[in-house]
């Protein structure tokens, strides 16, 4: 039984100040029987440990406060007591749905700090693996989001294709989820012989599954009614909250770091940036489905121009010497010991570097004090900004739409809480 409480005493500040949330507080002002419900923190619909405390009038959310931190592992603090290389496996666990993108984001920042350029082959392979990860991230997001709306079948269609991508990634980096694929200065290993053919085959499966998902939902009345015009956020609001990535593009802002600040020769690839028009749940799902097609196109172009050569720089400061030299001669062995024992020591300084991850701008701000450990690592997770706007999007809507919306902004708790 929920006791009768005077909501005024319990409601968060922003509810009483209706100018901030755009909430029609007057309508609910005299309500004495609001029901307080916790969405999460451990509920399958929240896709992770998130909590939103909602005040409900019937099924309408009058006010909501969000809380995060249930999956806080202290990534940033951990990074301070580990060497630059040792942080790489930790980044796998940020956005675990697209682990390689975090590896790339972190290594790119450290490489920028050290002023290292990675070999072309490593760059193109990073692009290919990142785009594969973007595809599976979007498949998971769209698939799981549709489950929230009751459309379970799509989930299997999305996950069949995703499974095949994981098979490729497993052969490539030795693990499915916790890839730790990149190293500072390149990649941990080169591709295997059948890589290009398998990727091409999997792209076909991905396109098929996206087509099937689109066929199932795009004209389905239930889906359309439940997603169009629901949980709308305006361009201005989205920008002011610091949104990036597909969720921002769904509001109609054409902003993609791969176009705006191209890295890894993204400017040479031909691809479009899909944008939405309304900024509702429908747009957020479909921007992702459209992006899968664009990423598939990028991968095809990248496979065509994949150059030959090493995947690791030969910069002696960061690259372990080839095993032949470690086992065979004293210089190689000393170099090997030096890098492992003393670590990579960038000059004191700071750097901020960013990549377009599946959810938006993934940034790493790193401060070095000349030692082998970073002095400070700050991660800018794209979900954090998305989740900050969550309460505002769901206020005034129905509780079931809040769940659908949570899926569409793709909160990955591992990245949100770090």
């Amino acid at each position, binding site marked *: 039984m929920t006791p009768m409480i005077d909501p005024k005493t319990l409601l968060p500040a922003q509810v009483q100040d209706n100018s901030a949330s755009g909430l029609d507080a007057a309508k609910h002002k005299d309500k004495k029987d609001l029901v307080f419900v916790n969405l999460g923190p451990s509920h399958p619909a929240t896709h992770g440990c998130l909590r939103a405390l909602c005040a409900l009038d019937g099924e309408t959310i009058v006010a909501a406060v969000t809380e995060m931190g249930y999956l806080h592992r202290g990534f940033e603090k951990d990074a301070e007591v*580990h060497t630059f*290389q*040792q*942080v*790489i*496996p*930790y980044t796998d666990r940020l956005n675990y749905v697209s682990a390689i993108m975090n590896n790339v984001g972190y290594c790119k920042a450290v490489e920028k700090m050290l002023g290292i350029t990675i070999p072309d082959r490593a760059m193109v392979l990073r692009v290919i693996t990142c785009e594969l990860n973007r595809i599976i991230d979007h498949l998971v997001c769209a698939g799981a989001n549709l489950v929230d709306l009751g459309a379970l*079948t799509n989930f299997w269609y999305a996950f*069949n294709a995703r*499974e095949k991508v994981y*098979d490729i990634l*497993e*052969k*490539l*980096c*030795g*693990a499915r989820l*916790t890839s*730790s694929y990149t190293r500072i200065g390149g990649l*941990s*290993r080169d591709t*295997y012989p059948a890589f290009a053919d398998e990727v091409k085959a999997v792209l076909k499966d991905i396109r098929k599954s996206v087509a*099937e998902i689109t*066929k*199932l939902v*795009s*004209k*389905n*009345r*239930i889906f*359309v009614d439940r997603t*169009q015009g629901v949980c709308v956020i305006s361009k201005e609001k989205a920008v002011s909250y610091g949104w990036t990535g597909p969720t921002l593009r*769904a509001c109609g802002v*054409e902003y993609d770091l791969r176009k705006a600040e191209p890295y890894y020769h993204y400017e040479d690839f031909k691809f*479009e*940036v*899909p*944008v*939405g*028009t309304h900024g509702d749940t*429908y*747009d957020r799902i*479909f*921007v992702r489905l*459209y992006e899968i097609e*664009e990423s598939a196109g990028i991968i095809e172009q990248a496979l065509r121009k994949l150059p030959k050569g090493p995947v690791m720089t030969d910069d002696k400061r960061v690259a*372990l010497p*080839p*095993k*032949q030299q*470690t*086992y*065979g001669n004293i210089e190689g*062995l000393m170099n*090997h*010991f030096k890098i*492992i*024992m003393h670590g990579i020591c960038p000059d004191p300084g700071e750097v901020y570097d960013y990549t377009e991850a599946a959810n938006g701008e993934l940034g790493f701000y790193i401060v070095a004090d000349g030692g082998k450990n970073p002095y400070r690592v700050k991660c800018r997770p794209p979900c954090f900004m998305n989740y900050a706007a969550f309460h505002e999007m769901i206020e005034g809507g129905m509780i079931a739409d809040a769940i659908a919306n949570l899926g569409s902004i793709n909160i990955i708790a591992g990245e949100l809480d770090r």
Partner: protein
Amino acid sequence: MKVVQRPGMKGPEKIYVVEVLKGLWLTFSHVFYNLFHPEKLPTVFFPEEKKALPPATRGRHRLMKREDDSPRCTACMLCATACPAECIHIQAAESPDPNIEKFPEKFDIDMLRCVYCGFCVEACPLDAIRMDIPEVTVAGYTRDSLVYHKEFLMDHDNKDVVADYNPPRPVLWTHGPHAKP
């Protein structure tokens, strides 16, 4: 720039039954396809059936041996230093063999902490540790049982290994009389 289309619903599509039937047609085509091609089902009936792990897999660790079954490891501590999870505990001792300086008296890997990153394998200058035993379901009843000791890590004579996790073997070994390629 590509704008997300909203096809909208026209005529009979608005009566949602029509679209639902079309959707059912698609899902049933999958059902019948799967019924007649059971070998192509993506489901793996784990644990009865197991997917073969590919060559690159980072599996369970093992310690390599010399010809006389002593550990190849010289307790140089590189793996313990490189390990991001700080889960390798080595206690070095003087080797009885005059040609070898040190050997690990104790070599424990705490699998409860290990993150399977493979950094230890990369760090070893002697190819003394590998992660190529295809066991990915590490489970135990007590915490102690999941701390793998040297004896257990070296007991792999009859075990399967996945091919080539490590970089190619060097042609020439220069590490003492007991080294074998």
